């Protein structure tokens, strides 16, 4: 296959999966602009790896894996974490979700650990099996089940509190 047709295959794949990848990215980070950046990064990495990925027939899983790893890495960066300060704030800490976000499930997702977020998205939004989710996240099936269970109860609690 020469370059034009190889690239055509890549472009076709990237175009057809772009929206789904954006939604996963948004579910992971809760911000459409950052989601676009994550998808762009994913697609560049996918282009470089395309020969072996396409040959193995694992394009979807590979693209999601790159995306989720990038999102999980981003959430681990110091800028995304709490920062120590010299002086404690006098005011009480704000509620975890703003008023407009209280009813948003995606916003509620952001309060979960990154791997729990990924588990919910893969298991319940993409409808992957426990085994497929475990393979994509590189964790055991037992961990997938416990992540899912904890994540769903946390989400229910938060949404119930918001609806009350």
């Amino acid at each position, binding site marked *: *296959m*020469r*370059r*034009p047709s*190889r*690239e055509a*295959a*890549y*472009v076709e794949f*990237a*175009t057809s999966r*772009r*929206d789904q990848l*954006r*939604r996963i990215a*948004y*579910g992971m980070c809760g911000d*459409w*602009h950052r989601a*676009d950046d994550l*998808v*762009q990064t994913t*697609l*560049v990495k*996918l*282009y*470089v*790896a*395309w*020969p*072996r990925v*396409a*040959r193995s027939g694992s394009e979807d899983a590979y693209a999601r894996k790159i995306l989720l790893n990038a999102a999980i890495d981003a959430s681990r960066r110091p800028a995304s974490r709490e920062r120590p300060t010299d002086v404690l704030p006098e005011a009480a800490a704000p509620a975890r979700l703003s008023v407009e976000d209280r009813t*948003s*499930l*995606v916003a509620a*997702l952001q309060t979960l650990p990154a791997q729990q977020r990924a588990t*919910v*998205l893969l298991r*319940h*939004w993409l409808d992957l099996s426990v085994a497929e989710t475990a393979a994509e996240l590189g964790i055991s099936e037992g961990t997938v089940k416990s992540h899912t269970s904890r994540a*769903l109860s946390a*989400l*229910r609690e938060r*949404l119930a509190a918001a609806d009350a």
Partner: protein
Amino acid sequence: MQDIIERLDRELSAAPGTGVDIGRSVAAGRRALRRRRLATAAGVLATVVVIGGAAALVVGGDDPRTGQDVTQQPPTSPTATATTTDPADGVVPVDIHLDGSVEPATGAQVIERAQFTASGGQVAEVFHLRLDGREYYAYGETADSKVGWTPLPVDGLSLDEWAEQQLTRGDGGATGDRSWVSFDDRSRLHPKAGVEIGEQRADPGFGERFAAPGEFTAAAEVRRSDATWFLAVRQTPDGATEAIPYRKDDRITTLDAFISYARDQYATNDQGGSEGLR
């Protein structure tokens, strides 16, 4: 459960217009791929006749704006600049296709082709081929999307020996090999695993095209894998020891002859470059 899934689906589906540009991904992907290939090709092509420091190293690739083949400027080093008169200019003996296959260039006559696994576990398709009147060793490593090639002769190396050397020396376009010897703090060479030093000479005068002033240099005759090699050795800016091996052949049989040959190879030529050993 279902309420959560429906809610999630509703929110994720309410996506604003996308800022993801597939064309930009393709262009950035091509650049990333080209950088990888150049890192390898620059190291491999350092064996090519060297003429000018600013001469162009030609590696095929498509310009993301035009889709046409373009010429890339490689990073230059004391040993690695390329030729503008090399008839191989513009020729890429092998390429890795996006479907993962490694194929020789159109018109190439394949003399030998094999799957090769290096001692470091790298797997590549290796070729001895003839193209436009020249013979090349070439390889394509699909896992890392890397290709490399060298016009023959290559210091008397067999295709497997050459491939082992190329695949195990790492990324970054390094022209030397760090697996042979190391300097101690008095510029004395010590062998690494599997290497036996027969004779060594400190500061053999290979010149500034070989190493910056003040950096340790040496020449040595060593044995490895039942073969005798001569090494031109230098300290790199990061403090590591880098050797450029030359397999002993009928032409160069003593360390003195090798030092003399290496001095000539690293002498500055009319164009301000040098031939180098690779």
